[in-house]
């Protein structure tokens, strides 16, 4: 079912609509009384501007929404669903952020994120990532439950012709174990997950998988899981947490030399930025390309959050979501990245070297060592 906005909201994923047209469509859709969500139309009453008439460009949006704060962890999720979505295809679901650094944030999505996954799959095709022929299995070892990851993997495996298998990992529990110094408990939990991976591998035809770098490393450390996996798997997607260049090098060339390995940088709030296919002379072994313009990533100075950093400089990400199902005004997230110059005249940004923005604290250790 198309409407006036279909040419921007539902443009083919290999084409890039005009950013300002998308901004206007997003404002009109999410803030008009007839189509907007109860949350946004309600909030607009207290804005000092009118999103329908004052926000015509991305710069307007940055300017106007700079003082709009949204606590995504406290919004009743049903109020985020645009009224205009009634009768449109797709069923809305509620998805939560990792929730490892505070109360989980919630978003809603029906079909917008599937387009992001189509975009990701397009890059996987380019990279020679396997397809499943409708019989082979894809094993996801990572967050499912409230996280959008399970839905993303479900969409990706469907697009690529795999059956999906899941081993669930609760990142909040792992984080809590580590935060309270119970590393032995988190180790037991990881082993419990690896036991389940082993069980799937024993009887199922697994040819591709997705997981976090940390889990992949732990798999390599368990010969009973690693050996059958290395033998069977020809495609691996890593994401969820950062990875250093040397670990990536070892994963690709030593741990899983037979597999095509692709990175994915994303989270519940920003969607998925697939790894852009590697080129000679790339400034980093893994450069991510966000799904522009539906997800806008601005890389800004960590101190002055309104100033964009120059190319090849580190900064924190400021993310804006402009989709049919969800509008998220510019929001600073925790990740530090290096801004890269986009290739091929791509109008969005490319980023690399994603790391959580944490400040190290030195502590005095008693003793001569």
């Amino acid at each position, binding site marked *: 079912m198309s409407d006036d906005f279909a040419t921007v909201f539902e443009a083919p994923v290999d084409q890039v609509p005009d950013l300002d047209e998308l901004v206007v469509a997003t404002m009109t859709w999410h803030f008009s009384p007839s189509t907007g969500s109860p949350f946004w139309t309600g909030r607009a009453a207290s804005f000092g501007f009118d999103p329908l008439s004052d926000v015509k460009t991305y710069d307007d949006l940055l300017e106007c929404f700079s003082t709009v704060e949204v606590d995504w962890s406290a919004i009743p999720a049903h109020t985020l669903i645009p009224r205009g979505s009634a009768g449109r295809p797709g069923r809305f679901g509620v998805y939560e952020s990792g929730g490892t650094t505070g109360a989980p944030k919630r978003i809603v999505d029906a079909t917008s994120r599937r387009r992001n996954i189509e975009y990701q799959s397009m890059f996987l095709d380019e990279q020679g990532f396997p397809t499943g022929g409708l019989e082979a299995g894809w094993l996801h070892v990572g967050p499912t439950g409230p996280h959008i990851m399970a839905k993303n993997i479900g969409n990706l495996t469907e697009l690529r012709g795999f059956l999906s298998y899941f081993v669930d990992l609760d990142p909040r529990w792992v984080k809590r174990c580590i935060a309270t110094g119970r*590393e*032995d408990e988190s180790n037991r939990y990881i082993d419990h997950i690896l036991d389940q991976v082993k069980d799937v591998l024993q009887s199922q035809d697994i040819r591709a998988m997705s997981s976090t770098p940390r889990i992949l*490393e732990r798999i*390599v*450390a368990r*010969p009973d899981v690693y050996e059958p996996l290395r033998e069977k798997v020809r495609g691996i997607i890593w994401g969820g947490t950062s990875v*250093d*260049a*040397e*670990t*990536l*090098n*070892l*994963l690709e060339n*030593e*741990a899983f030399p037979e597999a095509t390995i692709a990175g994915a940088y994303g989270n519940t709030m920003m969607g998925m930025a697939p790894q852009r296919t590697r080129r000679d002379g790339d400034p980093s*072994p893994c450069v991510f390309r966000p799904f522009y313009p539906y997800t806008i990533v601005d890389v800004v100075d960590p101190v002055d959050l309104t100033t964009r950093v120059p190319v090849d400089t580190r900064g924190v990400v400021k993310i804006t979501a402009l989709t049919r199902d969800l509008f998220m005004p510019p929001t600073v997230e925790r990740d530090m990245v290096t801004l890269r110059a986009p290739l091929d005249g791509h109008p969005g940004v490319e980023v690399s070297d994603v790391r959580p923005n944490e400040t190290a604290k*030195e502590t*005095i*250790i*008693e*003793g*001569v*060592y």
Partner: protein
Amino acid sequence: MAVDTAIRVPVIRAGVAARSAETALLRGVDGTPLAEVDQAPPLAATLTVAELRRRPLGEAPPAETFRRMGELFGTATLNGLTPADYCELQARSAGVPISVARRSVTDMAETCANAPLRVAAERPAGAVSHVEPGEIKAVWMRRGETLSVIAPSNNPGTHTQWVHALAYGYRLLVRPGTRDPFTPSRLIAAALEAGMEPSRLSLLPGGHATADALVKAADLSLVFGGDAAIARYAGNPGLVPRGPGRSKVLHTGEITEEALDVICDSVAYDAGLRCTNTSAVFTEADPRELGQALARRLGALVAAAPQTAQAQLPVMPIEQARAMRAHLASRLAGAVEATAPLYQDGGVADLGDGSAALRPAVLVCDRPGHPGGGIELPFPCVWVLPWSWRDPVTPLRNTLALSVLGDDEELALTLLREPSIRKVVFGGLPTHAAGPTSPHDGYLSGDLMEVRAYGVAGRP
């Protein structure tokens, strides 16, 4: 990242040097870039141990290899560094006075050459090296094949411990201390140059996560660290812990020049950075009087840049030195610093180049149970506490090295019977004194080796 240093410390995996996509710039204590250190992430540790498991492990290297290894360490140009280059780098990076590295260059030859002799001394008397047909006997075997070493940066001599493990026949994977990758890198280069089988030697510079992966993957692990680091691996069945030494002197009798000599040597030898350096003195005399006498002597130690010959104290980036002193201040619990009046500008000696030396501290306590008796800090820092015959043993527990001063050998032997005191020296020896085959904290073979039985049927 462009770095104006030509020195690079590569990762070594099973004897083969390799570059890493991740490097860390190692700076001297004064901030000068010294070297680029290739970083081994946890996965490199895991994959290296897995690779080693696929290769058969032969007999321990011959005695000649160790002799040659020590000689090369002391005399050869290794990794492009002469012994003098190595000493300077080690001093500037670790902040340890260069005299320490210079001495270790000479000592290492002896230590390595002596390794096979030490192994022979540690071998249980009943264990044989060859079982004849018709015999069933004890043989001395390794408990595993791979040993990881989570090494510190405090003193080059610490690394001699794992040389012994090589002599037992282990394969070694060393995670160097952040501030001293140079010593293990040089030792490994010397071993390879001496012809040691390459798979026995790996160097994996990295952070906590690398150490964790290494401890998890290796059969056994020799872990140097503070109480928290040791506790981190407490659940690991292969852990061989080397925590703070909390070495002590027990002083009985009068305060004599000889006693002061031994105590000051015990506190400040090698800049006070050894686990066998004394961190507490228990005295039968007046702690205040002894503390003041010690302060007068220790206060004269020279604060200077670590690469200079006159340096006698550890040097750190100045903000770290201040934090260390602030930490000491927070731990006084009523103790009085006898050294304080000697330092017009405080306990941190600003060297003017971004670094500072930590001046000695003598802290006088009013009771034997004062917590200072268990506080070891990485500079000449000694707590002086009262001791009496009413409770002679309790305050001296949990001690790596104990020197008993006075003329009562019965007392020394009584203390030797306390299992948590790992070494007792009597009659005027400093706590760091050691014999060529005396155990440091038990024999390392006590943890790494065991006797098993082997029998061969007699010929008919």
